[in-house]
């Protein structure tokens, strides 16, 4: 059997790419058609407290991951004890976010999405083959995010550059209407091969 025909063995450091088809949004489009959006199952975790799974909107234009402050109650955190605050333009208006550092989870597209009670089992976060390949049903990271009062969106979570895109390689397919999530390849600089593309002014003829 040639090396190219073998099934790669995934280690815990080489987790598979997760593929999420777009999901239907609750609003109709401006022509009355159904709207499909890149929504991912995520949750927020604060020690032994956590939110249920939430539909997080992948938003490349958002500088920061922002969530509704109604989630603070689920997490048992008080937003009066924040780590800074700032104004953000969101949905056509200015919102004030209070920043907190917290754990976030992205759940696998084919995960059982079991209830938090099941997660109390230390093995519950792992897939059936966890012992063999280190596969987990979620990817978890810690980041500073913004909790927004008078949240203007219908969804509860907007996944932005800080707190989401800085954690993964993210590919959003317009025609395929799907989102692919992979771990960052720390051994490869994806842009290093064609540096001129990143500096068009410098490479332009004089």
């Amino acid at each position, binding site marked *: 059997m040639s090396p190219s025909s073998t099934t790669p063995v995934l280690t815990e450091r080489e987790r598979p790419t997760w593929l999420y*088809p*777009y*999901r*239907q949004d*609750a*609003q*109709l*489009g*401006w022509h009355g058609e*159904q709207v*499909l*959006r890149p*929504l991912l*199952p995520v949750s927020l975790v604060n020690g032994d407290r*956590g*939110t*249920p*799974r*939430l*539909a997080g*909107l992948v*938003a490349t234009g*958002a500088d920061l991951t922002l969530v*509704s402050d*109604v*989630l603070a*109650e*689920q997490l048992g955190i008080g937003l009066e004890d924040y780590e800074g605050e700032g104004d953000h333009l969101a*949905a*056509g208006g200015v919102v004030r976010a209070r920043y907190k550092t917290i754990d976030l989870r992205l759940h696998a597209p084919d995960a*059982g*999405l*079991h*209830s*938090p*009670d*099941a997660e109390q089992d230390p093995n519950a976060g792992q897939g059936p083959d966890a012992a063999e390949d280190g596969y987990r049903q979620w990817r978890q990271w810690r980041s500073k995010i913004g909790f927004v009062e008078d949240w*203007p*969106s*219908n*969804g*509860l979570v*907007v996944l932005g550059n800080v707190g989401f895109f800085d954690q993964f390689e993210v590919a959003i397919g317009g025609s*395929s*209407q*799907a989102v692919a999530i992979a771990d960052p390849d720390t051994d490869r600089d994806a842009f290093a091969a064609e540096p001129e593309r990143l500096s068009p002014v410098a490479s332009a003829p004089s």
Partner: protein
Amino acid sequence: MDQIRTDFTGYEGQYVALDWRTGEIVLADADPQVVLREAKDRDHVVVQGRVPYPDEPTRIY
């Protein structure tokens, strides 16, 4: 890739949670805390958010 379709009709103004496998709405309430609390005890359930009324402006997100 087949998309999961959801019928949000009749839930306008309420927060809803879906069975993520089927798109079926399994929880709905005007109070988001009720939906968040109830969703925690259910497998395969994801809280989507609030269903807008048809005459609300189309949101960017």
